[in-house]
C-alpha cells in the first residue's frame, strides 16, 4: 500500500501532468488525422520477473506538425505510463528533417516506489528514397526515483542517445532497428545501458496492421562483461482510422 503523503503527492502530480500534457491538449485541439491504437502482448523478463506476459497499449495521433503518443505497459505488478510529443521542424531539404521530442515516463508497482523520467531530445532524420530512413537523436534525460522510505528522491541527469534505422523493403512491410539509452517504456538511472530493438510491421489494409518486436537491454558496454537486464519479445495489432 502507498502510505507516505509525500510519495502519494509525487505520484498524483506526475500522473496529472501526464494526463494534462498528453490527453487534454490533443483532445481540445481535435486531432485531424491518423489516430491509431496499437495493442500488443509480449513475453518479458527483467530484474524482478522472468518470462512474464506483458500487455502494451499505445495510442498515437497527430495535430498539425506534432505527433503524440501515449502508452501503457503492464508487466505483472510493474506498470509504465509513457507519453511523447514530437514536433516536426520545417525543412527545406526533402531528405533531411529535424524533430524535437519530449518524453515523460512514470513507472510504479514495486516497494511502493515510483520512477519518473523526462527526456528532451533533438533528432535528425535522413531519408534515402522510399527504402531507407535513419535518425540520430541526442538529448538529456532527467531521472527521479521516489522511494517512500528515503528522505529525498534519487535524482540523476544523464545523456540520451538514439540511433534508428528504418527499412521499407516492400511497400507494406517496415523493418526497424534501434540502439538507444532508453526504450519507450524502459528507462535507466544510468547511461551506457544500451537497448537494442528490432521491429517488423506489415500493413494488411489501410486500417489494419500487424507486427512483431523485440528488445534487449544490457547492463554495460564493451569491454565489460554484461548482463541482460531486461528483454521483451512480442506481437501487436494496429487499428488506424
Amino acid at each position: 500500500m502507498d502510505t507516505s503523503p509525500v510519495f502519494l503527492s509525487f505520484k498524483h502530480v506526475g500522473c496529472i501532468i501526464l494526463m494534462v500534457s498528453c490527453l487534454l491538449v490533443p483532445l481540445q485541439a481535435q486531432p485531424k488525422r491518423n489516430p491509431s491504437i496499437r495493442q500488443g502482448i509480449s513475453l518479458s523478463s527483467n530484474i524482478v520477473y522472468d518470462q512474464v506476459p506483458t500487455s502494451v497499449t499505445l495510442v498515437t495521433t497527430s495535430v498539425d506538425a506534432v505527433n503524440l503518443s501515449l502508452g501503457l505497459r503492464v508487466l505483472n505488478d510493474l506498470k509504465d505510463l509513457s507519453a511523447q510529443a514530437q514536433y516536426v521542424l520545417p525543412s527545406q531539404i526533402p531528405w533531411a528533417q529535424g524533430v524535437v521530442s519530449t518524453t515523460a515516463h512514470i513507472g510504479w508497482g514495486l516497494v511502493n516506489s515510483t520512477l519518473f523520467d523526462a527526456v528532451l531530445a533533438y533528432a535528425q532524420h535522413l531519408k534515402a528514397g522510399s527504402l531507407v530512413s535513419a535518425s540520430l537523436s541526442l538529448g538529456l534525460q532527467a531521472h527521479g526515483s521516489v522511494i517512500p522510505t528515503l528522505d529525498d528522491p534519487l535524482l540523476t541527469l544523464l545523456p540520451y542517445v538514439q540511433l534508428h534505422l528504418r527499412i521499407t523493403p516492400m511497400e507494406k512491410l517496415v523493418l526497424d532497428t534501434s540502439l538507444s539509452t532508453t526504450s519507450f517504456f524502459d528507462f535507466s538511472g544510468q547511461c551506457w545501458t544500451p537497448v537494442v530493438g528490432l521491429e517488423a510491421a506489415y500493413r494488411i489494409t489501410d486500417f489494419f496492421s500487424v507486427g512483431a518486436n523485440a528488445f534487449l537491454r544490457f547492463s554495460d558496454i564493451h569491454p565489460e562483461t554484461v548482463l541482460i537486464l531486461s528483454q521483451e519479445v512480442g506481437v501487436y495489432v494496429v487499428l488506424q482510422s
Partner: protein
Amino acid sequence: MSYSKARFGIIILLLALLAGCAPLDLANIERDAPSASFDEPVGSASRSFSFLVFSDLHFGRDDSGVYWKHEVFLDWLDSYPTTLAFALNLGDMTSDSREIEYRMAAAFLQELEDRGIPSHSLVGNHDVRDGGRTLFRSYIHAQTARRFSYGGISFYLLDSGNASLGRTQLRTLIDQASSDHNPKIFCSHIPFYAGPDMYYFGLSDAWERTMLVNTMVKAKVGLVLSGHLHLTEKVHHFTEENAELVCASFHGRDSLFEQTLPTWYVCSYDHIAKQLAVSQFQVTKEKTISCSVIAVLQMPSSS
C-alpha cells in the same frame, strides 16, 4: 516491389543490427550473474573495532601516469597504532582480469595476511572480464559474493561486476538481509547511487537500485561501501542512519584526465554510540601521508 530491393533492405538491416551490437562483446553477455547464498552464519556479539578499506588496486594497469605506493602503504600499516581487524578490498584489483594481475593482487593481500590482517575481497567490473571470476575463485576466494560478521555487524560482499547483481543474487540478498537482525554494511564495487552527477558510475537498473536502497532502510543496512569512481570519495545520506560511501582509488594517477592520489580508509566502529568514523589516508605528492576524518556515520541498532 522487386525481390532484390527486399533483399537489399534486409541486408542493410542486418548490417545495422551488427553495428548496433558493436558496443557489446557478444561473447561477454551473461544471462544472470553468479548466484550467492548469503547464508553464512553471523554472530551478534557487539564490540568496537577498526578495519581497513581500499578499492581499485588495478594491478597491471598501464595507462599513462598510473603509479602505486605499496611500500609507503605497508610502512604506514606497520606503524599504525590501532589494531585493524580485517581489510575490505572493494574490487577492481586487476586491470583486465589477467592471471598475472590476479597473482599480483593475491601477493599484495598476502602481505596484509602476513601482518595479521585478513582480507575480504569483492569483484569489480575489471575483474570479471573474459571469465575473470574463475581466476578470482582460484586466487582470491571461492565465492564472489558472500557475507561474514564481526563485532555484531554483518558485512555483505556483493558481486556487482556486471554493473548489476542480477535477478538471482538480488532476490537472495534481500531475503537473507531481511532475516539477519544485525546492523549491516553492504560492500559493492559499483556504487548504488552516490549523487545526481553520477550518470554512469552507479548501478544500471533503476528498479534494482530502488529495491536495494529500500532493503538498506528496512534491514538496518547503515552503510554501503563502494569504489569504481577513482577520482574522489563521495558520501550520500539516504536517511539519517543509511548512507553510501564511494571510495577513491588505492592506486594513483597523474594524467590529464585523472589526477588521483593513492587513498585508503580506516573505519572505526564505536558499538556504544553506534557510530562509524571514516578516516581517509592519502599519499601526497610530497610522499607524506595525510589523514582526515571524512565522515562520522550513525549506524542502526540491532533488533
